[in-house]
């Protein structure tokens, strides 16, 4: 007999709200656009502009796709505090990376140690996703972080942007599959107490 406590009820609600695949799709598209920005000379800036639009588009998609099907919810202040943790950690990681680079400050050293630079980039990228996975309780973000970290690390190490395309495609496809499953499970509904029978 399945049993679920109050914590389980809250977690199930949280996970179902983030099980639409939109975040994964957005991260995959981010990587693919990064790849396009690297290879498309002529359209490089268009790709970078699109990169900036991924965040707002994700928020819009959440409102237009998820909410009409699953409903709207405000989670507890604890959940919101955990989101703030993620922002702080990511800002910290960006700061640490900047300090490390500025401390080394020597372009020739950086060019002479591509493996160390690649490992640093991969670690920082992975840690950012690990923060998302841990504090936002989304375990699959560890895997996305591994793919992201590997992609950026390998791109730096091999001096080719194709790892970005490969990882981006995998992440975007997994998001698309999740989204398709979500759309199949939940039809858009416009119910309200006022029209309840």
């Amino acid at each position, binding site marked *: 007999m399945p049993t679920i406590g*109050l*914590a389980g*009820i*809250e977690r*199930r*609600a949280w996970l*179902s709200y983030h099980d639409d695949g939109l975040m994964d799709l957005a991260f995959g598209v981010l990587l693919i656009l990064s790849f396009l920005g690297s290879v498309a000379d002529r359209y490089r800036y268009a790709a970078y502009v699109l990169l900036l639009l991924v965040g707002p588009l994700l928020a819009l998609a959440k409102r237009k796709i998820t909410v009409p099907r*699953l*409903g*709207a*919810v*405000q*989670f*507890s*202040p604890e959940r919101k505090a955990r989101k703030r943790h993620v922002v702080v950690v990511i800002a910290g990681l960006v700061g640490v990376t900047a300090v490390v680079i500025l401390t080394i400050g020597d372009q020739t050293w950086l060019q002479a140690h591509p493996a160390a630079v690649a490992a640093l980039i991969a670690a920082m990228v992975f840690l950012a996703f690990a923060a998302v996975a841990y504090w936002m309780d989304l375990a699959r973000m560890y895997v996305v972080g591994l793919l992201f970290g590997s992609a950026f690390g390998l791109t730096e190490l091999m001096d080719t942007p194709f790892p970005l395309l490969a990882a981006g495609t995998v992440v975007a496809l997994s998001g698309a599959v999740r989204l398709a499953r979500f759309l199949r499970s*939940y039809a858009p*509904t*416009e*119910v*309200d*107490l*006022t*029209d*309840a*029978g």
Partner: protein
Amino acid sequence: MQGDGRRAEPTQAGLSEIDRLIHEPARLAILSLLFVIESADFLFVMRQTGLTRGNLSSHVSRLEGAGYVAVEKQFKGKRPHTTLRMTSEGRVAFREYRTQIETLLSQPPGNADDNVT
């Protein structure tokens, strides 16, 4: 829960003190969800509890009548939109219900757990 913070000791007679409004499974599911979040709209509660529209509507009306749930109706464009939130009175009642149930089921006598027919 008694006023001095001690746990109530429900007896057979104490069973009748359990809040029947909360004890009904559908309403318990609604309140359990609203207890752990800040607020949700009607559709979200319907999806999470698995209740039908009419069923949820009637249970929410009863909970609203008891003052356990606040129902806020707004218009989003031309469509009505209903947000549900547990009131502080509802939170107190729900906590008291949890205490009563936990106390009631926590201590079976002797080897009652081993009695299998």
